[in-house]
């Protein structure tokens, strides 16, 4: 498809057909402040930080809702544009708790980023704070209404991506807040706890419990649960999974996960994990060394094979194990133990 050329503050930029001014500009490495824009969602035009001037268009259109047309002349840094953005940001900041250092989104917060870009002065406006208590009803995540900027990314993720619509905006004006139907706590709603809303929150208004620390490394892998096979990005710190995100680039799930994949992986670090081989002695399983255990198994298998033939041994491989492990296991049963009896729980 043809690329479209347009200019932003005099600089020529190319856009893909259908791209918005904001998308094309961000893709070209030029920052336009934005909060409600989300690549996965329909343009919303709510935060108004991406207003620009466009030659031939009335007023200040938002870059996120305006599609690029050939030859379009966009100005993002005029005094008027800056003034509108700056006051909008001042209004947001005047209504936002100034507790960044202890916020779970500190330094990763889109609001911080945009505020820093615009250089706001917080002293001249009347400060306000919403008098709504946190919704702590969900075991995995918390909603802090005070930090909510009503960008509705959570609302839109829930309806546009998940097709669920567990939450929407309630009430009007300054009283507006994000709520499940009838103002119930989220845990009593149709919410499926997938946590995708949390991933898309630009501030610390939605945060995962206990995710205060940042991962030291990230590893992509596949979810251990059902057969859909979603790819996920595991954030690892101190040999624990401290953060889980859906992989946006993977064709199966495009960033989405379910409650089990998103929040149900803690079992890997469970205290109950088996850490040594066990051998049953006098009806009790007792700890043993690998050599003891494997020698015992090998000798018993050999003995049984010798006495009763390979067909007296059977193996169940696993729908939870990798292809390589399953391949090896059936090879072991068929070639090593000489048994035809290999199966797994495909039928359950």
């Amino acid at each position, binding site marked *: 498809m043809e690329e479209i050329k347009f200019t932003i503050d005099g600089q020529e930029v190319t856009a893909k057909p259908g791209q918005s001014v904001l998308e094309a500009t961000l893709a070209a490495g030029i920052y336009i402040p934005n909060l409600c824009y989300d690549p996965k969602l329909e343009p919303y035009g709510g935060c108004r930080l991406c207003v620009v001037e466009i030659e031939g268009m009335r007023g200040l259109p938002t870059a996120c809702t305006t599609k690029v047309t050939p030859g379009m002349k966009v100005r993002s840094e005029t005094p008027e544009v800056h003034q509108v953005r700056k006051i909008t940001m001042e209004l947001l900041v005047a209504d936002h708790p100034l507790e960044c250092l202890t916020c779970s989104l500190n330094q990763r917060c889109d609001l911080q980023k945009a505020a820093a870009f615009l250089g706001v002065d917080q002293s001249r406006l009347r400060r306000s704070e919403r008098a709504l208590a946190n919704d702590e009803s969900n*075991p995995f995540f918390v909603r802090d209404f005070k930090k909510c900027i009503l960008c509705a990314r959570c609302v839109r993720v829930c309806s546009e991506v998940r*097709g669920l619509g567990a939450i929407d905006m309630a009430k009007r004006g300054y009283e507006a807040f994000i709520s499940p139907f009838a103002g119930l706590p989220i845990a009593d709603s149709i919410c*499926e706890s*997938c946590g995708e809303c949390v991933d898309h929150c630009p501030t610390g208004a939605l945060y995962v419990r206990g995710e205060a620390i940042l991962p030291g490394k990230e590893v992509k892998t*596949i979810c*251990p649960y*059902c*057969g*859909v*096979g979603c*790819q996920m990005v595991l954030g690892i710190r101190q*040999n*624990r999974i401290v953060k889980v995100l859906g992989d946006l680039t*993977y*064709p*199966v799930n495009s960033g989405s996960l379910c409650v089990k994949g998103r929040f149900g*992986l803690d*079992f890997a*670090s469970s205290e*109950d*994990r*088996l850490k040594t081989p066990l051998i*049953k002695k006098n009806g009790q399983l007792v700890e043993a060394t*690998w050599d003891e*255990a494997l*020698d015992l*198994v090998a000798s*018993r*298998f*050999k003995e*049984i094979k010798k006495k009763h033939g390979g*067909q*007296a041994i059977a193996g*169940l*491989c*696993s*729908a*939870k*194990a*990798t*292809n*390589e492990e*399953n*391949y*090896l*296991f059936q090879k072991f049963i*068929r*070639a*090593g*133990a*000489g048994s*035809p*009896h*290999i*199966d*797994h*729980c*495909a*039928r*359950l």
Partner: protein
Amino acid sequence: MTNSISEFETADTVFIIGSNTTEAHPIIGLKLRRAALFHGAKIIVADPRRIDITQVAKLHLRQRSGTDVALINAMMNVILAEGLEDKNFIAERTEGLEDALPAIKEMTPERAEKITGVPAENIRQAGRMFAQADRASIVYAMGITQHSHGTDNVKALCNLAMLTGNLGKEGAGVNPLRGQNNVQGACDMGGLPNVLPGYKPVTDEAARKVFEEAWGVKLPEKPGLTMIEMLNAAEKGEIKALFIMGENPALSDPNLNHTRHALDQCEFLVVQDIFLTETAQFADVVLPGASFAEKDGTFTNTERRVGRVRQALTLPGQARQDWQIIQDLSNRMGYAMKYDSPRQILEEINQLVPQYAGITWYRIEKKGIQWPCPDTSHPGTKFLHQDKFTRGKGKFHPTPFIESAELPDKKYPLLLTTGRQLYHFHTSTMTGRVEGLEELCPGGSVEINPEDAAGLEIMDGEKVEVASRRGKVEAIALVTEKVPKGTIFMPFHFAAAPANMLTNDALDPTAKIPELKVCAAAVRKVA
């Protein structure tokens, strides 16, 4: 699956039968929901329970559990009676329709209504809706297969797809959803008693020869026993040693009393797992393996996509990589294995499994590849049977309706069916160790229709005993319209209320799959 997950959003009609998709396969459920809401797909759900996905469905058929064949045959009856079949597809791509006709012809919607309880008019609507779509897709899961006539269920669905020309094209197809993250891969890798890796029958001499040469041994010529058969054989003493890697039959199998007795009877039981599962407690030797987060390798998902698994955590204690344990054991038994990494094992798979020939370690780095992929320049296969079926022409199989092995009677007047819930997985070995999931869904409940509950004087939230011919368990009654009158539902996840104490281990004669979805049960209030 014949087709890909992403194709659901391009289907015109999706027929979901025997799959509680949004709970058991949430991300596919999500795609189906999106298909209905954003792409105008018509969803037909056939399920006795009012499952979540029915909210976006155009049509909900509440057939009595175990009567799927009657329902599907009747849909085909309507399609043929109204001339809605795809005559070209039938003529060019299939054979054997005449053999399948008698069972279809006799199953009029009115007759099916008597058997299934679904109004004849709804069956007609469903038949039309399916046949008139350009691209109609069938989605099914264990609700179709876990029956004593599960194979017939599947065959009937294939007949329906072929009759309407809905195979071999995008957005259509017959799409079984695999329950576990790598059940597809375990099957592909020959983790089945009748086939070698790549679905080569063990009875096929030429195929066997390829593996015998590669592995340097003579291989058994006859198919082995299936899981349930193994356990029966162990109970009888025919199987002496059982090696179980990462499975928990002591909770997942039907008729648990029997299963547990078999495990107990087994002369030598080895279990390799990450937790001391209900099964591991019966073991003579327990070997600590690696969790998904601690290993490298590949998983194959339900749409045949082979993707990379990467090690993120170090192993706890002395736990070892599963492949290393098997290799070590094999070497100690005198059958040499000398792999230095999962990648090397995959390379051997590339050599021996034609479907995986082009699926090499580095090619699947980013997005995975869907098999079949015959060579390293092949992009993989989005949907199967585009120009021809594996066997040439698609074959219609006759599928006469047969009742389930055990039906409600005077003593056990209710029909018990089992399934999964969103917040838990299989035997909850993993999910049971996540506090939040336990909080959201503590489990151990039995769904019962308000009319039945009233008759038994059971109130919502009361403790009840559910009994079948094979055992009894206690559970909390969840009085809900979600289940139809006469049917009760239990999730099988929970050790505290193990539904499989009750289920029937009658097997499908072909697939040897147990009838977990239908058995007769009785409920009474516990004082």
